[in-house]
């Protein structure tokens, strides 16, 4: 479940000292999903995407399922419970009527979602009528109040965990905007009052209550009838609520499967600016390649995890030994030994420090000056007061003067020359796109830079350059194939999404693999538009003349030449190989008496790999002969 970022950081503008607090707050969520199971939830049908009508109840369940599947991939530690109200049967610790807490074996009521839990919930329809049943819980005349009961059960479930370490929430899915509509008079007022009181009690305990209303086709969910009071809506928010809630529901369903990361300080650094004046900055990992989840080795027979034991064995004596304290490098025919301390001393050049060396114009930062993902830097006054002020002053100057800072950054294990590029805050309608601060970019050293482009420049002839016309045609082409609003955020990693999808399918024993759309393929259709095709043809004509196809073939010819050579070799081998009686040699065990060259005749004649030691070659021949 995503928090609305605007909401969470609404009070960002005040004092940044809160920041640390906010980061520490609530590392997980405890959520109880209260799903209305009244007959009405089943009777109303809405057309869904695949033309099948879905009831409100089905919509709610599939929404919950999707959001859990995402959560599991996110590897969140959120704990969830599903609780139906307006049911025929009851199942809850308080033994209250009309409330049914759904669960599977080996799982607490409020716990992390498991594959089994998700699977059971997805086949709920099969047994719902039999085991749970739908029935109005609020009937005039009786004192029963199923909504009240449900809230009570939810609140009791959320008693687990302290409010400091967890966000506790109750989400209500319903299409009944006036739950006490059929009750008359004093009883209604009474029920409304007690229900609201229950809600207030829950809120006092740090539980937030949210509503996901489902509107009828012909009539919109009227929040003001009852729920406005329950979730505390007023004024403008009231009008905005229903459409916004609809969006939230969509969001829940179509979230990207992506691991969520808490904003976490990677390091606290001392940034020495000049002559002993140092300020405090924190670094954050903003962009890091997402890797597939960690794997655990299992024993395929028992499916139990395997413990990996590492042992050190002396290569000379075969003796088992402790982790050796020394390392060595062979140098000038001797083994030069280093202790671990010495090695770390070498690497320790400027520990925990970022030292400013000077500034350069941005044009000095070339596109090839990069080695690793950048790291974000933001100032902090937590330990050194005045840090933020200097940082902002430098930040503004650097932006105004189009400069970046060069600094030396060292940790205990690694040190590097870095560029600090000031980034101005960028905000669009959706919120902050780029936060203000500096990005630390690792600069390569001279030995890290290669000069492949100079590799083929040995000849006297000057390298051809494009002429004006060719450049113009290229420009026309570029204009045609333009990605207007390209943003690096727009592509999901197809490999990763596929991985997650497979994992989910296997875990939930789903039969068919969900199709993952590869967003990174070029827009073939767009490229086939006449305007684009024309620009391409003009460019081709200008650069290749009418020889584009020939040049294409030239490449093939070259390849075929190489393959001709290979073929000639193979033919030779076939001939030579024919001179031996391989079967007899193999049977008499005399293969090993042949030379490697001779063995290779057989291998190349039979298109087998010719790599490896003699033993391998012999073995490969024998395997091939089926002996």
């Amino acid at each position, binding site marked *: 479940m995503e928090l609305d970022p605007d909401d969470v950081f609404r009070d*960002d503008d005040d004092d*940044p000292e809160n*920041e640390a607090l906010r980061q520490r707050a609530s590392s997980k969520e405890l959520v109880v999903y209260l799903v209305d199971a009244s007959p009405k939830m089943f009777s109303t049908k809405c057309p869904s995407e695949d033309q099948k009508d879905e009831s409100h109840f089905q919509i709610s369940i599939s929404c919950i399922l999707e959001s859990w599947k995402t959560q599991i991939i996110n590897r969140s530690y959120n704990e969830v419970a599903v609780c139906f109200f307006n049911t025929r049967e009851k199942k809850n610790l308080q033994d209250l009527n009309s409330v049914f807490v759904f669960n599977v074996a080996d799982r607490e009521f409020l716990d992390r979602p498991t*594959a089994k839990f998700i699977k059971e919930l997805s086949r709920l329809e099969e047994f719902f009528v039999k085991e749970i049943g739908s029935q109005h819980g609020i009937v005039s005349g009786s004192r029963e109040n199923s909504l009240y009961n449900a809230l009570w059960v939810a609140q009791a479930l959320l008693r687990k965990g302290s409010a400091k370490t967890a966000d506790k929430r109750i989400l209500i899915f319903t299409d009944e905007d006036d739950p006490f509509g059929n009750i008359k008079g004093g009883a209604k007022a009474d029920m409304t009052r007690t229900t609201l009181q229950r809600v207030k009690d829950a809120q006092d305990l740090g539980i937030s209550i949210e509503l996901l209303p489902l509107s009828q086709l012909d009539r919109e969910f009227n929040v003001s009838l009852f729920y406005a009071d329950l979730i505390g809506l007023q004024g403008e928010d009231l009008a905005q609520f229903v459409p916004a809630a609809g969006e939230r529901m969509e969001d829940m369903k179509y979230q990207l499967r992506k691991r969520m990361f808490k904003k976490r300080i990677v390091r606290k650094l001392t940034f020495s*600016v000049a*002559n*002993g004046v140092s300020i405090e900055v924190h670094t*954050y990992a903003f*962009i890091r390649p997402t890797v597939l989840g960690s794997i*655990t080795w*299992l*024993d395929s027979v028992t*499916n*139990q*995890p395997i413990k*990996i034991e590492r042992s050190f*064995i002396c*290569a*000379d*004596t075969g003796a088992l*030994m402790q982790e*050796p304290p020394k*390392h060595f*490098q062979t140098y000038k025919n001797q*083994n*030069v030994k280093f202790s671990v301390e*010495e090695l770390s001393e070498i690497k320790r050049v400027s520990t925990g420090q970022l030292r400013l060396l000077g500034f350069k*114009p941005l044009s*000095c930062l*070339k*596109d090839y*000056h*990069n080695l*690793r*993902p950048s790291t974000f830097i933001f100032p902090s006054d937590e330990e050194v007061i005045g840090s933020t*002020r200097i940082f902002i002053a430098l930040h*503004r100057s650097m932006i105004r003067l189009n400069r970046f800072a060069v600094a030396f950054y060292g940790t205990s294990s690694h040190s590097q020359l870095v560029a600090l590029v000031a980034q101005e805050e960028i905000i669009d309608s959706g919120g902050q796109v780029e936060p203000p601060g500096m990005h630390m*970019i690792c600069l390569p*050293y*001279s030995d890290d830079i*290669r000069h492949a482009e100079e*590799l083929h420049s*040995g000849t006297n002839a000057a*390298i*051809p*350059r494009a002429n004006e016309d060719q450049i*113009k045609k290229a420009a026309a082409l*570029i*204009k045609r*194939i333009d990605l207007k609003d*390209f943003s*690096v955020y727009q592509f*999901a990693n*197809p*490999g990763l999404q596929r991985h997650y999808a497979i994992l989910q399918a296997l*875990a939930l024993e789903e039969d068919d693999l969900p199709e993952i759309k590869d967003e*990174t393929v*070029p827009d073939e259709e767009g490229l086939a538009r006449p305007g684009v095709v024309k620009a*391409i043809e003009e460019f081709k004509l200008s650069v290749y003349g009418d020889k584009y196809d020939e*040049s294409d073939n030239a490449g093939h010819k070259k390849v075929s030449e190489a393959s001709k050579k290979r073929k000639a070799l193979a033919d030779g081998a076939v001939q030579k190989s024919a001179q031996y009686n391989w079967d007899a040699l193999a049977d008499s065990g005399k293969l090993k008496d042949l030379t490697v060259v001779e063995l290779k005749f057989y291998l190349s004649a039979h298109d087998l790999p010719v790599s490896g030691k003699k033993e391998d070659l012999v073995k490969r021949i024998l395997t091939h002969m089926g002996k």
Partner: protein
Amino acid sequence: MARNKEALVLLLDVGPSMHHLLPEVEKICSMIVQKKLVYSKYDEVGVVLFGTEETENELTMEVGGYEHVVVLQNIKVVDGDLVETLKKIPRGTLPGDFLDAIVVGMDMLIKKYSSTNKGKKRLCLITNGLSPIKDPYEGSKEDQVNAIAQQMTSHGMKLESVVVRESVVLDENVSVMEENDRILNLFPKRTCAKMVFVESSTSLLGALKTRSISPVTIFRGDLEISPKLKIKVWVYKKTSEEKFPTLKKYSDKAPSTDKFASHEVKVDFEYKSVEDANKVVPPEQRIKGYQYGPQVVPISADEWDAVKFKPEKSVKVLGFTDSSNIMRHHYMKDVNIFIADPGDQNAILAVSALARAMKEMHKVAILRCVWRQGQGNVVVGALTPNVSDNDHVPDSFYFNVLPFAEDVREFQFPSFSNLPASLLPDEEQQEAADNFVKMLDLAPSDKEEMLQPDFTPNPVLERFYNYLELKSKHPDAAVPPLDKTLKRITEPDPELLAKKKSAIDSLLRHFEVKQNPKLKKSMKRMREKPSGSDEEDNYRRITSKNKVDLIENGVKVEKIGDLTPVQDFELMMSRRDNPEWINRAITEMKNKIHDLIEDSIEGDNYPKALDLLVALRKGCILEQEPKQFNDFLHQLCKFCLEHDLRSFCDFLASKGITLISKTEAVDSDVTEEEARNYLVKREAKPE
């Protein structure tokens, strides 16, 4: 191995005007040989000096001329002696003629290899190009250069010239310098040659590649702009981090008499079932398990292969976009370079046209790349133009990998403009900062750009190889401090700081920084700024260690509290679950004592500090850590003397605190007498 054997001849100017640069020349040349000893020990190197008093080369004997050129070392396989030779290059007495030296070097290569070994023969010239070259006997200098260049091309040699150009050139030298530059510049036009100018000794150290790596393409094929337009390209790595060498683990188990012992350590992994520690699980019975919620889902490699994402090998353009849409900090990895297939003239033209058009229009291309068939994922990145200004180098593209949506973490930060005014700079402060940024300029228009990545050596690696060389001769040598020239990379240039002192001072005047008084002392300690003196260095090591401890243990750090410090310390010392506790306890105790003394007003904390010190001393004797205590006591006394806290030393002396002597703990290297006299002596010395 022999196939990749490189032959290198170093041509070094040792004339008088080069003398002050020779220490750097010695460093870079010996570094080249040292790295060859590690990575390519069959390479061959020769050394030619010019500008020497003497003359010693084969050409002078054969045809005459070529005076003042000495072959210091004939071409031979690299060895330790060569490193020694290059560490002590003899100084010359006369201005040298670099063209003569080039011819001599070329002659050596030709005689040794004739026309074999093409492309693996290299000449490296290091000179300042301030000495005039003689007119040739016939023809002009240009003709001579042409003849040399032709020879080089036909023998497949490369020439790299490093011209050291320091700021001030005397007037009379200007014409010589210009003439020389012109001559040297002819080489890149005629043959496979490269020339770089460097201005500082630091960039001289980075001017030559110290390790040659044969370039390998990571992709050869079509750059597909549309199915109808494919350009043949080769993709290489442009940057790739040279890693700290992986050392082998050392085993001392072999008997010292065994001359042929490898001393290597094999690391063996065994997979055992968790329930039964004696049961080894064979490799074919292992299966990978993937986390799904609280469960682990076993999936075999075959299952994955059947269903996993398998894109086709291809490099396709998705489209072009404004370069402003790509932020510099989005670049993810090391950089690749796209070069047109060198055999395809039209492809070179097509790349050239696109690169130039993109540059003019400030556009980048977005690419989707699958380098190899069978690769399990795709890469999306930005192609940026690299327009060449050298006639012999084709235009090309740089390629930087961009993040996917999953890779970007959306953290929010407060806007600077919304921060309270107390955290924002006022106008004057802003002006001081502007001035500071302007003045601390590393790329002034009239000088070489300082710390240019292309000419900056890796200080850590330099340090390692220097230490390796040192250790090969003195196995017990300590790690040497960072070389002075390398300090220009890790620390601000004092010259620059001195020159721009006013801008720096004004910045410091306008801004105030102070430690947050609300923070606890122990936290503050870590932030103390290191100054570089040895004592401070020690200090920093202690505190940074402390920091690691704190981070590792979070809030759980077993602290020595304020109420019962001695008891806490003793409890910590007696913990046996992890030997680290002892070190931690000692370090914490030291900090505590330090804090007490520092905070004491007229010695009110002294008795408490003494109690702690006595406890620490006792603990150190018990745990056989006398050095820890002795070093600390030294440090403490030094600290007290420096900070007007002499009274504490006196106080200690009066209470009979001494160093831990040999008789109390065998590991101590302090005799009983020394121990007893330590504080007494201190007392007598000052004033």
